């Protein structure tokens, strides 16, 4: 078994790791780097709990190999807050009770942030379709959708 050496950037920090050829990026994040904020709900790309961005693109980290992170810029839920300052989406989710158990929350926040970077003024339908790949079993999505729309409005006002 020879492991693969990977040099990458995670949440802006230069990072090196060794992984097996079959390790997914999610395996690497959780089991090799101790970044357990990304969750495995299905392992088949259906639930979105493992959402991260790679070079700015939203992906399910369970569907990407760890070795493919070579030379890329990966961001995860652990990189969403800046120091002790939460991202506005994180603040809004707490304020509006947009989570119950919280297992889907990291993935949904990463996906929502990615949406607002591309589309600062999404319609309700656009938010719903963008987040259609992120399963939540607790909330019925109502408060999640409202929190994303509300944050978008706040960010537009602030800019």
């Amino acid at each position: 078994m020879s492991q693969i050496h990977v040099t990458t950037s995670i949440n802006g920090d230069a990072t090196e790791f060794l992984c097996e050829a079959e390790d997914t990026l999610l395996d690497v994040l959780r089991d090799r780097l101790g970044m357990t904020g990304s969750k495995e709900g299905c392992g088949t790309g259906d639930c979105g709990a493992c959402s991260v961005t790679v070079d700015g693109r939203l992906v399910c980290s369970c569907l990407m190999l760890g070795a493919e992170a070579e030379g890329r810029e990966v961001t995860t839920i652990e990189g969403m807050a800046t120091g002790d300052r939460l991202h506005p989406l994180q603040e809004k989710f707490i304020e509006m009770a947009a989570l119950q158990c919280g297992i889907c929350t990291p993935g949904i926040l990463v996906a929502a942030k990615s949406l607002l970077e591309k589309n600062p003024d999404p319609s309700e339908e656009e938010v719903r379709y963008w987040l259609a790949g992120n399963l939540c079993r607790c909330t019925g999505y109502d408060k999640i959708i409202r929190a994303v729309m509300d944050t978008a409005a706040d960010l537009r006002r602030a800019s």
Partner: protein
Amino acid sequence: MALDHSDKPRTFKVVGTRPPRPDGIDKVTGRARFGADIVAPGMLTGRVLRSPHAHARIVKIDTSKARALPGVKAVVTRADFGAVPEDVADVIDNCMAGDKALYDGHAVAAVAASSAAVARKALRLIDVDYEVLPHVTDVDAAMKPDAPVLHAGRQEETVPEGYSQNVMSRVEFGHGDIDKGLAEADRVVERTYRTGATHQGYIEPHACLATMGPDGQADLWCCTQGHYMVRNTCAAILGMEQGQLRVTASEIGGGFGGKTVVFLEPVALMLSKLAGRPVKMVMSRSEVLRATGPTSSTSIDVKIGMTKDGRITAGFAQLRYQGGAYPGSPVDMGSMSAFAPYDLENVKTVGFDVVTNRPKAAAYRAPGAPMAAFAVESAIDELAKGFDLDPLEVRLKNAAREGTVASYGPTFPAIGLEATLEAAKAHPHWTAPLGENQGRGVACGFWFNFGGDTCVTLNVTPDGTVTVSEGNPDIGGSRASMTMMAAEELGIPYDRVRTIIADTGALGQNEVTDGSRVTFAVGLATIEAARNAKREMCKRAAMIWGIDEEAVEWVDGAARPAGPNAGKHDPMTLKEIAAIASNTGGPIAGHYEVNAEGAGVSFGTHMVDVEVDPDTGATKILRYTVFQDAGKAVHPAYVEGQFQGGAVQGIGWALNEEYIYGEDGILQNAGFLDYRIPVASDLPMIDTVILEIANPGHPYGVRGVGETPIVPPLAAIANAVSEAAGVRMTDLPMSPPRVLAAIQGQKGG
């Protein structure tokens, strides 16, 4: 100290507001540690080998090749567990099969290895010699006398002759005379309804980490709805004393009843015992779907009579629930709750608990009730529409109220069903116009709500903050509710209280987080623990002031002299009393341990608009409103969240979700791609109306709210789809092909 225990309405300062939840930051930053996030030094990876057959005798298991594989540290089969007490015999059999594999996915062996790759390889090296047996997965087929039998000789004394031994028990509830009532009816509807088996669908797969030393002491971390249940069950299975096993609940990524039983935990403990190392086990999604959860699939006959002015003269239902491979489907709960919303002179339900070659049913949110309500509420709707009567008026005319003898026996105290119906009638949703191919449905639902064993310890720190320790995992914001009730009772700010979920070593026995019990029972214990702490703080103030402790009262977070003889003293705040606790007798705490009885029942009414595409049979939910009695909403945002989440789980059950078995008895859709739960783009906003009819059994009037919201949706949606499609839908899920076939059948007929 004088305490006000009266039930008179009171004004609240903290309860009823919407503060940020105490675990919010952990949960939005990824810091919260869920079941699969726990690690231990030197831990091994545990994996389970599962049966590929629906029903098979296990002739022999040869693990020698797996044991010989480098990196394999332990292999476990059922033989390692030996004899276990009778009350956990089915539990261990479900975790690790004995002589027979009873369903596709049934665990037959497990390994602990140095890596996941080695563990996977080891599983492939285990040889199991199966003798495949005939199987049965359908409830009606399983009841027939010639059906393949799962368990011989275990039928209860309650089952009449003529049924397969798969029929494990029979229950009957009701009062009055059905035949007399039916004779008084102007019309009788008689139909058979069927519902598919659905999974709780929590996003977090089961996970645990076990470590047991040669001294017999063990620690277990797991995601569960009840770590005390896990401790007691595992201790019984492993022959340990309960005090030797400490269980810590991780954060829990959803449960909905599916995490009220053990699956991996006894196996992980046994692997750790044999390997002498910590063992971590995490299920895959397909394992979750094949081997945990689901709820019963059902087949229900209903016969209801109604007069032309809308009075129900008789209600009868025969309910047949398959509960998977072991006895214990929730058919008794279904039979008791089926007609609970109505004041009926003549009512009878008969329920059959049936075993089949499917995973053992676990509780799923108001277990048993949604399917029964689907059948009954569909028939009532059909009768109302047949007489051209308003379905809400018909329900109001027959609604159970204070003094009604419930269909399951007792007389109701103050209940909120009428309030939800009146609120529904007055809501703009009820009179909004509908377009072509659209329909509106309503339905009512009921749930019992529970209490049970509960412990809370409230400690006052030297600087005057307060910590609350409770023993029920926080599955949807309950830390916030407990914190709020403690702050309310003590008269201090919310942010001066912190609530933690204690491990099994720190508190006495706590019932599982189920039955919508936590905000009610743990809340009650939190309030009483706070009252005990206040009593102690009043005593300390009395010492300082040199007066009788009865002459001190607690108002707005401070002890104050009360009564004409108390003298003049400045109030002493909680902070001031805490600061001198060492000088007045030592640390201050309040605790309360109780078997909380007196949970108030809960009712809800749901209203939904749908549009059915006549060309494809696809249903779109256009608008949804939930009306439910919460007793007192402690944190209204999380009460709304329960209403919304329950309604959407119901939408999934009604429209999409279903366990699909092939002729071979193998589950065909063991993944989220094919077992499709609702996604954001399927749904509209879910509107909520919270009614507050105080529960006299709780100091603040709280009722459980978590389970009732999944009871009405199946019927409400079926009533709406039936109206939109122009044909009565009786089978769930109402998937597009099924709706299309019904529409085409209607046209053809």
